[in-house]
């Protein structure tokens, strides 16, 4: 049997057979989703009413501000400004709103809102929304604009039809969904590079520190040992990821069933920017079917194909560098930190470019980032999400893939030379300068 495969098989089996593997692979998504479910549950089900005493001296609201049970309840009281603090301190109300007698809708007067304790962001937003809506209604009324007119004004329109030159339609939803898909897949690759890269590094360090490398190197070439390790751990990563994907989709359905009101409350959630954009796009285009058409517009098999390619390519490119660092580290894991910096820098740089590329897939920075092998696995995902040839031309995609393969061969070649020397070197603190010397010396 090929020795690389033998090594890979061991690396794979020892990791997969561990209890912690099952725990992290299945447990982690469950914990994350449980956590999210809890947050959503508590934010949807606010049991405490936030009672606001409204002293409307100017009679602006006409005794009517929309209240919702379980959230904020507005109650009109006959009290002057001096009596309001008493209402709060007697715990009858949590806050008070005082409208002075001279308050006019057109003026620049402001209303005073006082609460016994600091008001949370979400409650504050709800209060503002309710009060503003009530005020707006009154304003329109005072300007003699009828409700029908307002409704027709507020109606959603899609007057400007964005489309590409070749006639493909393109709407906000699609862009939003592309944004989200690009962002998520870029971040996933970023996480993969770090998790499995460090896993390779730690594996190499373990072999070096426990001196097993000495024993193995006499029967296996250092390159075979390194590649075997990288392949084995890569297979672990792939399996783990497939399990996660299945779990994530499964749990998403579960959550949708458990919390049908989720999409409604999502708008008020402090969610991630990617989701925000998508949610905004969804809101502007009206409804769920807009999102569906946006998702339809994305070629998922193509994206998943690209994802797997850049996953494997990026992993191979970086893991050999991580392996080289692992081989240079001695007993002290602290050394690894400083040696890792030149590797983590381009990954972080790639994330920065990716957040730009996802907005503007054809900018110069995005094109550079998606071609340069050290950043392409992350940046290209952002562009690919916008589709071919809208986000990225076929030529650029092919070039990026070829460059990534060449980059992987290059880093592996360099890393193998560092690894070969480093794995048998003890007791000496090694710098990048020395590692470079090993990498480029003639064998």
């Amino acid at each position: 049997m090929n020795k690389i495969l033998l090594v890979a098989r061991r690396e794979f089996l020892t990791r997969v057979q561990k209890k912690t593997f099952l725990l992290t692979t299945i447990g982690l998504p469950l914990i994350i989703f449980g956590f999210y479910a809890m947050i959503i549950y508590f934010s949807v089900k606010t049991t405490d009413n936030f009672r606001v005493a409204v002293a409307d001296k100017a009679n602006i609201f006409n005794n009517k501000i929309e209240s919702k049970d379980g959230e904020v309840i507005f109650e009109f009281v006959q009290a002057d400004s001096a009596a309001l603090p008493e209402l709060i301190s007697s715990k009858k109300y949590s806050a008070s709103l005082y409208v002075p007698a001279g308050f006019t809708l057109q003026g620049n007067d402001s209303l005073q809102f006082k609460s016994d304790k600091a008001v949370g962001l979400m409650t504050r937003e709800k209060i503002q929304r309710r009060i503003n809506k009530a005020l707006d209604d009154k304003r329109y009324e005072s300007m003699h604009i009828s409700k029908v007119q307002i409704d027709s004004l507020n109606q959603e329109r899609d007057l400007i039809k964005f489309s590409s030159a070749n006639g493909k339609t393109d709407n906000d939803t699609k862009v939003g969904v592309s944004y989200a898909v690009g962002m998520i897949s870029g971040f996933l690759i970023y996480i993969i590079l770090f998790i499995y890269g460090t896993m390779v590094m730690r594996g190499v360090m373990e072999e070096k520190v426990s001196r097993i490398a000495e024993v193995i190197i006499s029967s296996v070439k250092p390159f075979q040992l390194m590649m075997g390790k990288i392949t084995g751990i890569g297979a672990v990563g792939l399996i783990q990821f497939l399990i996660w994907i299945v779990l994530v989709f499964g749990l998403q359905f579960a959550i949708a069933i458990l919390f049908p009101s989720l999409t409604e409350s999502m708008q008020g959630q402090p969610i991630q920017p990617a989701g925000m954009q998508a949610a905004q796009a969804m809101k502007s285009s009206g409804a769920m079917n807009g999102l569906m058409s946006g998702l339809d517009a994305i070629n998922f098999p193509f994206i998943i194909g690209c994802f797997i390619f850049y996953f494997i390519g990026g992993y191979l490119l970086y893991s050999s560098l991580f392996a080289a660092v692992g081989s240079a580290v001695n007993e002290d894991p602290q050394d690894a930190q400083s040696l890792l910096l030149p590797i983590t820098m381009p990954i972080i740089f790639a994330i920065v470019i990716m957040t730009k590329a996802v907005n503007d897939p054809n900018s110069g920075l995005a094109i550079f980032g998606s071609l340069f092998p050290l950043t392409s696995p992350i940046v290209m995902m952002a562009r690919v999400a916008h589709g071919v040839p809208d986000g990225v031309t076929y030529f650029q995609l092919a070039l990026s893939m070829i460059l990534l393969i060449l980059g992987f061969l290059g880093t592996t070649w360099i890393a193998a030379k560092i690894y070969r020397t480093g794995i048998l070197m003890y007791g000496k603190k090694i710098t990048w300068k020395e590692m470079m010397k090993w990498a480029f010396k003639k064998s």
Partner: protein
Amino acid sequence: MSMILELQHLKKYYATQKAVDDISFSIEKGSIFGLLGPNGAGKTTLLRMITGIFYPDSGEITLDGKKFDPINDIIKIGYMPEERGLYKKMKIGEQALYLAQLKGLSKAEAMEKIKFWFTRLEMESWWNKKVEDLSKGMSQKLQFVITVLHEPKLIILDEPFSGLDPVNANLIKDEIYGLAQRGCTVIFSTHRMEQVEEICDHIVLVNLGQKILDGTVASVKQQFKENKFRIQLQEVPANLVADSFEIVDQKANQLTVKIKEGFKSNDVLKYFLDQNLSIEAYNEILPSLNEIFINLVEGSKSTTRAFQNIND
């Protein structure tokens, strides 16, 4: 007798050191060969070149009559390095199987050989244990088994007895003899001279990257003898003066004498016989390898081997 391994003018220079500087020697098939030298003499580098881990800068290695081919000849060599370890969390049986397969054995072959050796050294109960459960001596034993189980023609053991108790050391020693009798050649690298004296047929002493001594244990001892003899008398007369020897040391009735130039051991014996003194014992004092080693290495500044720049 044919040679299993021949080294010709091997050189390996590092950036700051001539680790191995023009070393040649050959090893007979079936012999137990001692490679000696102080710390940092270049032994490990030499062994790594023989096992194909490093390529020599120049020089040639011939294994079993053919030019050494690091990739295909691995199966013929078993190397137990001085710095050795095992996967701590892996089960011992699986580990042995894995390492044997890496050497190039098929799974069935490997299994059979592991079973044989585990039974032989009474290690069957270890199969499902992990290395972290083993004592240092036990893992040493396991290391030895892993090194020899594919029955390589050339076995290289770097400090094989460190950490072993006398019983287990003897066990391993017997196995080494057994392997040599079955035609394996053993290269034995150590600082422990008494073990070398006991086990090795032939030795090479390396210092500062160069070979400074090469020969059988007996011939080396002959080479470095100082013509000293020990004689035990029933009683020692008050003043002993003779032309043939001088007394170096005296302990009770035991004299250590050094024979002067131009005389033979029988001349000493004759002197005492002529004096009519009854001799209880008479034997030559050969230097121990330890003394030879210290003599040769001391003063060579090898203990403070300086780093020098090598420009060629």
